């Protein structure tokens, strides 16, 4: 795990350590099994086409989980995620597989965040962040916010 971050280390406007993700058809199958979301929209070509989204799309809830991953990596074990919200603004299409476990070349996603506010409330040292998932073109396909408590060096 990365070094623990403290409330005193962060400033408004600062960046949440970015997290890279590559959505693949394999990952979508894995996510369907782990999450229980078997909507054919995420694995059946004709079904997705008929719904007007072109091709099978990345599950919104998987992108949400990437954002949770972004936040929990950044706040560390002594941080506590208090709230997280996100809205799915755009479709994302997974890379197809080249081999059994290697994806074809293609799009790479980045989960990113920016600190918008820091304040204390009782014993809690809180930070608010704007968070998002960016596709290969730099478009924010999922946008949201998070509230987390960070440990303080003075406690």
């Amino acid at each position, binding site marked *: 795990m990365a070094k623990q971050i403290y409330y005193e280390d962060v400033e408004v406007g600062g960046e949440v350590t970015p997290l890279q993700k590559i959505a693949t058809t394999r990952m979508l199958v894995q996510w369907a099994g782990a999450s229980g979301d078997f909507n054919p929209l995420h694995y059946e070509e004709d079904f997705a086409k008929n719904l007007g989204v072109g091709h099978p799309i990345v*599950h919104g809830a998987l992108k949400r989980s990437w954002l*949770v991953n972004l936040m929990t990596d950044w706040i560390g074990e002594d941080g506590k995620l208090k709230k997280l*919200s996100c809205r799915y603004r755009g479709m994302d299409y997974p890379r197809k597989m080249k081999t059994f476990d290697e994806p074809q070349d293609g799009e790479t996603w980045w989960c990113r965040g920016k600190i918008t506010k820091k304040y204390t409330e009782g014993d809690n040292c809180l930070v608010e962040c704007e968070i998002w998932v960016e596709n290969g073109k730099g478009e924010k396909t999922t946008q949201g916010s998070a509230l987390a408590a960070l440990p303080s060096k003075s406690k």
Partner: protein
Amino acid sequence: MAAFVVPDSLKQLVGQAEKPFVLKVEEGAIQRYARAVGDANPLYNNVQYAAQSKWGRLMAPPAFGGWPVEAEGFDMIKFVARLIGLGAPAGLLDGGVDYEFYSDVGAGDTLVAVTRVESIEGRETKLGATMITVVETTFTNQKGARAFVMRNTFLNF
């Protein structure tokens, strides 16, 4: 294209609570979930590491157990599919989610969840005539402490 007009068959669901359902949090389910996300945090993957942490057991990432994880006696997708049976447009998209996290969740916990339809409204969106449903689910652990609350937004179009 006009806004979707919500039929009475759906309007009457607002405010109604579903039968509570139980979610047993298991080590294997947490690990499969973390691997699917690509989250390498040892607290969610490594039983030995987690046992030596301050929690003493494998922990679940926040939002584990929320939509759309299946649980005994409840399947959020079937619940949403029921809306279609009652007159909602057949296209379904997950619009987004809001979480509030309280007590940490880990292997061995048993969560009881209650789902309630908060609102259903018709709108015109870029998808066309769309029905927007907000469903709130509160998860309580075996000690009676609130674990987390999630508010899901679904789009039928």
